[in-house]
């Protein structure tokens, strides 16, 4: 393979933020392993996943890809010094809310401000998850308002049926290498 056609691959650390039970782990498992597990398994500490996204777009005529190293953090509500260190060096955060539980939209609980203090300039994507449980269609007003406040993208997803999950991660990957 000539140097001109060799892919440029970046590795980027991504943190999953959100209160318990919003579907952080399910979203990552759906994206990385194409799986959805109904049983709720509270993540202990941190779980790390990796997924490569290739052919994002070209740079100087060379294909461009990114390895997303995804840190799925648990117990984010009780921020400890150890939890805070998990934020170090992240290029982006995926903030996940449960559309069926308005109380999960409380940003103070997930310490987004701290995350951005540790990683100034990091990208943020807001995600309203569990659209499959919204019989009358999702109400995205709150999500739009929060995303607007941070001038960030937002997505409505379902880890259960997979809708919009790939699109969300693809958009994030494009953002972190732009």
């Amino acid at each position, binding site marked *: 393979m000539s140097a001109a056609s060799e892919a*440029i*691959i*970046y*590795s*980027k*650390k991504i943190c999953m933020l959100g209160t318990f039970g919003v579907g952080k782990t399910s979203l990552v498992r759906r994206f990385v392993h194409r799986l959805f597990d109904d049983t709720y398994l509270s993540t202990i*500490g*941190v779980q*790390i*996943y*990796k997924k*490569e996204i290739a052919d994002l777009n070209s740079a100087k005529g060379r294909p461009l890809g*990114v*390895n997303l*190293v995804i*840190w799925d953090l648990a117990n984010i509500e009780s921020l*400890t*010094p*150890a939890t*805070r*260190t*998990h934020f*170090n*060096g*992240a*290029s982006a955060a995926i903030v996940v809310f449960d559309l069926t539980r308005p109380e999960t939209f409380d940003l103070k609980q997930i310490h987004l401000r701290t995350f951005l203090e540790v990683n100034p300039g990091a990208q943020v994507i807001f995600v309203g998850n569990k659209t499959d449980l919204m019989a009358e269609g999702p109400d995205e007003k709150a999500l739009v308002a929060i995303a607007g406040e941070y001038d960030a993208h937002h997505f409505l997803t379902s880890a259960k049926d997979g809708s919009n999950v790939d699109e969300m991660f693809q958009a994030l990957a494009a953002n*972190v*290498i732009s």
Partner: protein
Amino acid sequence: MAETKSENLHRLRRLMLAADEARVAELERALVRLSDRISDTDDWLEMLDPVIADALANKISESKEEMAEALAPVMGPALKHQIEEAKDDIADALYPVIGRTIRRSIAESMKQLVKTVNDKVDKALSFQSLFRKMKSKVAGVSAGELALAESLPLTVHEVFLIHKQSGILLNHVSSQANGESSDQEIIGGMLTAIRDFAKTAFQSGQELSNIRYEDLQIYLEDGRHAYLAVVCTGVANDEFLARLKLTERRVHSQFYRSLRNFDGDVAAFQASRIGMAKLLHDFGTDNEPGSGARRVPIWPAVVLLLLAAGAAFYYTGLADKTIAWFRARPAQPAPLAVDAAVLAAELTERLQGKVTSDLAGIRFVVDGQTLALEGQASSAEERIVIGHTVANLSPARIILNNLNVAAFPLHQAEARLRSLRVQFAADSGDLAPGEMHKLREVVTIMKTYDIPTIYLTGHTDGSGNEALNLQLSRNRAEKVRQHFIENGIAADQIVIAGLGASEPLGNNATPEGQQLNRRVEFSLNTKDTGDNRDNE
């Protein structure tokens, strides 16, 4: 008469049926008792308890496979359920068994170790043993300790280079042909999470340096921006630990800039593989004692040769002198002799006026044979210049350049840019001598702070006519612009202007004032430039 007849019939009936009636009553009572026991699970278990063990034992002895097949589908879920229900009970129940199992395993390992050590001792007259005894005398370590270290040789299996802050894997080498897999990325992250957890949980301020997992050990060599994680088995010796440290330092020295400005581009660390692979090679499976590479049967010839040489050595009296020399010789090289005050004075003398860094604030730390520089340099270029100068001035063979490049807030960076006026030769677009380092610093600041646009304003002294001065001032700004483009700043980030002699800084009546006026200034703000500007 009738009554008498009835009584007689009753008596006859009692005589004939009494026994049967009593038996029926007894059976009814037994039936009630049995019915009660059937509805009571505890009672059932009590009833079956004496026989169930025998029944199972008989069945298992008759057909183990059938029993295993019958029980297999329920055993897993049953165990899982029971563990979830009563973790402590299960732990209590298994504890004595696990303890015995571990003891047995350790005993087996120790037996093997003892056998290996005995084999070494049995070969007490071997060349290897004689060499070990000599080595023990010279190094001041017991022969038994050396034999033990040889019995548990160190073997490096994998080496990871991991970005300290993000946990992203920068490079990885493995002794396994198929050692590359996506799991390595996850291992890098998990090791970083564990290190961070240990550091914060115990608030020790110290980095985790060693993790044990069964017979595997992971040695972690911490660096400023990255760390090495080496997975190995056996006993690590001083040589290995020193090499590990040296490898980490070389990685930092070679890739300092890429590490400091790491943006996820791991390809920048491709060349670090060479040093990591060398570590793997020198302490890898190929070098285990007893491996094919060391089994070349030339030792008998070597022994004969050494015996002959040894005899001559002994009988000429050289042996005593040599042993005395070995004993008198210090085990470790003498610590590096560096007089920090003298070195600081020499450094200041060499670089005074050539750099803007605070030379007086630089500290010199001696660690064995290594001299480390601590403090701040005002730019990445000055950091290198200071490091090279110290290397020339000091006797240290290893210089560890730990100088930080000062990173100020944006407003301070802007103030710094304003202060960095570059001066020019008279009537010329050429920089005055010694001004180039300022341009390098401006480029560094722009890249560090991701500054979108910089404004360059050229000036002249008061000599010459206005039109020529305007052109000359613009030429000077253009000269600086070209330098910036050559050093990675995009053309559309640079706006230039020429203001001629309209904004003097110094008195044009004196040579010093004129020199001050022949300049290009830098700004992040369009208000600071004149109207005569463009970015073409």
